[in-house]
């Protein structure tokens, strides 16, 4: 039941915000309140969730189109509950940031942002392929408008490439869904058996690979992340990309065991290539958003590596890293937005010297950066270490590539930190540019606190994602 509440609440909130002609601030405030309420509902869901139980929980199942075997089936497993948690937290942070900067046309903006949160949560909760497809596609609708209306100067090109890539992937998935559903006689993941058809699997895999994005399907990423409003970019990189992780964990591994086994080398190679290539691109990027965007691509490659290592360590690491990366990426994007608001630009060449006289900004950027580069003791370190250990099971070469990725991460994050905070004062940095305002601190501190909490106790996520902490067995048995 709570899964449905988590889906319906933001959608109803979106309708409310869109239809009630409130003043600007009240509209944004109402949307932020709904987003906070959503976090509250999620916390209630966590307290009611029995992490020792392996079955689907907090769920609802209703027949939708009985003759074709389509049902409204939602619910959470451990890992999807954590992913949904990341989604609602990041959604609230985005709503708060939009409230703080005061976006134009607030009713439409906040309604779409809430709609996006609802669609993401629905994706993480979906247990029916049609519902999953609908939610997966539904994320696109608000994103298209959010980027296209409120985005930067090249927003038209950004939306076009984003939509073309994503839809090409998801329409292949639609064909795969039809083929799978008709062969099985049901679209419900809870009732369907496994399939050995590699073509159907590839239809799903391409859609997820575009969404993540994995190398070489990342063509939409730089433009979309650069042109989107910063909080939308945060949601995009932090949680929308995790729809791919959910797809891999819930659909690819349990439903297509044989195709996965056959294609594992290919998927691992793509993931590793994405990790290294994304890291190099991040190191070479000339602007803040470029660094965060490509680092996000690298991280998705890393997480995918953990997933397809398909052993306990790798899978635990993948889920932990997904949650940690969501929080890191959202914090980094919001920080980038705050720097951009002060300096008008994110060009590294024009920035520098912002640490002097701005202790809060410097501290928070440094802390978030340290977590992003996986300093030992952080949640990301735990995640990356687990993934590296898991990848070692597939061959020492993969583990070596993960290690290389971690080194590169340190390089690009340190480059970002020093380009913003240190060196001499950049041309775009005005002397009177303020330190973080209380409103900004109020948004960032909870995010960073979540990160530090997770760093102190990563097992909270990694040990409770799968029943009995045996992810590989749970997925092989097909998640009931």
């Amino acid at each position, binding site marked *: 039941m709570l899964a449905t509440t988590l889906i319906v609440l933001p959608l109803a909130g979106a309708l409310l915000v869109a239809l009630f002609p409130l003043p600007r601030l009240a509209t944004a405030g109402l949307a932020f309140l709904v987003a906070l309420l959503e976090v509250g509902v999620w916390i209630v869901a966590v307290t009611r969730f029995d992490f020792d139980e392996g079955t689907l929980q907090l769920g609802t199942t209703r*027949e*939708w*189109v*009985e*003759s*074709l075997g*389509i049902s409204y089936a939602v619910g959470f497993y451990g890992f999807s509950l954590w992913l949904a948690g990341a989604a609602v937290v990041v959604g609230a942070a985005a709503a708060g940031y939009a409230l703080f900067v005061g976006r134009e*046309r607030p009713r439409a903006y906040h309604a779409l942002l809430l709609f996006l949160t609802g669609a993401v949560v629905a994706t993480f909760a979906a247990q029916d392929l*049609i519902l999953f*497809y*609908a*939610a997966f*596609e*539904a994320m*696109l*609708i608000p994103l*298209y*408008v959010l980027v*296209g*209306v409120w985005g930067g100067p090249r*927003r*038209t090109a950004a*939306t076009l490439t984003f*939509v*073309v890539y994503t*839809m*090409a992937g998801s*329409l*292949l998935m*639609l*064909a795969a869904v*039809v*083929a799978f*559903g*008709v062969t099985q006689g049901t679209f419900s993941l809870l009732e369907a058996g496994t399939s050995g058809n590699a073509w159907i699997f590839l239809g799903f895999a391409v859609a997820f690979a575009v969404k993540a994005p994995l190398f070489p399907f990342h063509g939409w990423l730089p433009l979309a992340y650069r042109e989107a409003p910063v909080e939308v970019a945060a949601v995009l990189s932090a949680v929308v990309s995790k729809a791919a992780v959910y797809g891999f964990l819930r659909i690819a591994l349990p439903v297509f065991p044989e195709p996965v086994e056959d294609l594992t080398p290919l998927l691992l190679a793509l993931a590793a290539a994405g990790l290294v290539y994304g890291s190099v691109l991040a190191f070479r990027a000339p602007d803040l958003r470029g660094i965060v965007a490509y680092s996000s691509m690298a991280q998705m490659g890393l997480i995918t590596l953990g997933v397809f290592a398909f052993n306990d360590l790798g899978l635990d690491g993948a889920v932990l890293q997904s949650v940690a990366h969501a929080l890191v990426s959202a914090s980094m994007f919001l920080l980038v937005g705050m720097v951009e608001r002060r300096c008008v630009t994110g060009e590294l060449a024009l920035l520098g010297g912002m640490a002097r006289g701005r202790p809060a900004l410097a501290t928070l950027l440094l802390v978030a950066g340290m977590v992003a580069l996986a300093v030992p003791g952080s949640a990301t370190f735990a995640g990356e270490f687990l993934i590296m250990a898991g990848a070692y099971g597939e061959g020492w070469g993969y583990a070596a590539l993960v290690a290389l990725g971690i080194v590169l991460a340190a390089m690009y994050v340190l480059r970002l930190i020093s380009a913003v905070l240190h060196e001499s004062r950049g041309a775009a940095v005005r002397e009177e540019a303020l330190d973080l305002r209380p409103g900004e601190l109020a948004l960032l501190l909870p995010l960073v606190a979540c990160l530090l909490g997770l760093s102190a106790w990563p097992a909270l996520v990694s040990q409770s994602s799968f029943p009995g902490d045996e992810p590989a067995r749970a997925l092989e048995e097909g998640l009931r």
Partner: protein
Amino acid sequence: MIETPRVDWLALAPTLALLGASGVALLAAVLVPAWMRRATGAASALAGFALAAVLAGVLFARSADAQPLLAESMVRDRLAALAQVVLALTGAVAVLASWAERRRDHGEYYALLAAAGAGMLFFVSAENLMTLFLGLEWFSLCLYVLCAFDPERATSLEAALKYLIVGGFGSAVLLFGSALVFGATGALGFAEIAAADAEGVFLVAGLAMLLAGLAFKVSAAPFHMWTPDVYQGAPTSVTAFMSAATKTAAFVLAFRLLATAFPEQRELWTVALAVLACSSLAWGNLAALAQEDVKRLLAYSSISHAGFLLIALAAGTERGLEALLYYLVPYSAMSLGSFAVVAARERELAAPVRLEGLAGLGWERPFYGAAMWLFMLGFAGLPFTGGLFGKLFVFTAAYDAGDWWLILVGVAATAVSLAYYLNVVRWLYMRAPELRLAPAGGSPPRDPALTAAVAACAAVTIGSFFAAEPILDLASEAAGSLPF
């Protein structure tokens, strides 16, 4: 005493209700003072369509078993009744969308609209090649005149003439095909044609010409040449009605004709229809990419949707018919609704609506803008609209029938279609203010009837997503009336 055939008045009631409404509207045009003609005409047409919908609903409930009608020239079954409900509701919404059109002859307009509706209701229950032709000409003649109805629109007469000539050609082909089939089988009734168990070149040629004639009506490529010009030139409210209702009528009848009269030739017509489907999808979508005029764009979009519906027809199975009937519901709503929004914008600008004429509509007229957005998403098959399930069911039927490659064609076509549907959305919401056209003559008058029509279409578009099951159940009961 002369023996008369038994007449099943209930089965004819929906058609007769609309004929009656047409007569009332026509009389009103003469007898009622000028200032009341619009109200009486619209009210009688609306009442006629509403009554026809109710009567067809009753007919649906009471026609569990198919029965022949009027010396076996027609049939009373659930398929016809369901199609009649959809058609009558389409007509009712079209009446609402027509209310604020500026014209002189209101009485005649509504009389023709009701008469066209009556012809379609008659057409979908045809069980005989003669009745089929009669019904086809009946509603086509009304539509020819309706297309020419706006004397102030330079293109209106041109559109009507093109439609008349090309449509007349299509009818002639259909008639010729009927003659060949009659020559080969000696029968005109659908069931008797199948029972004659004939084969040979005349039958095949006749079947091909029948298909071509119907393809003209559903505007399937390569028989679609008239569609863009006619849709663009005709008065927009007429286009709205025509785009939705003609497809419903012609597709339902085509399915009945093929499944009852030509089950033996299945191998032939499934392949022919699959080819037509592919060419419609390709042509409609690619040509739509290049359109600047919104009505033309929607016309090409309707050609591409004919392609999707043809996929369902090509499946030729019970599931195909269910998918087709389901698809027609959201499609009719989206088509009517989008043309209605165009009509509203046209009145506001007092000029044909090109894409740049939509600039800023989304912010200036939030309701129309959001509705148009919804219809575009629905056409593209995105979630929260019946368009998604329409495509899904069609693909499911195709996969079930073994035409898995048609799914890939449909998927590719959908991907292309996104480019122009989202382009409309971009014009609605994402254009810089200096590009917006100032509405001619200040703020437009309120048009509650059209707003209600758009709201109804939006409600059906969304409702058919959430309530897919009840609609599909009705469709499956209707599909049970054909032999599979």
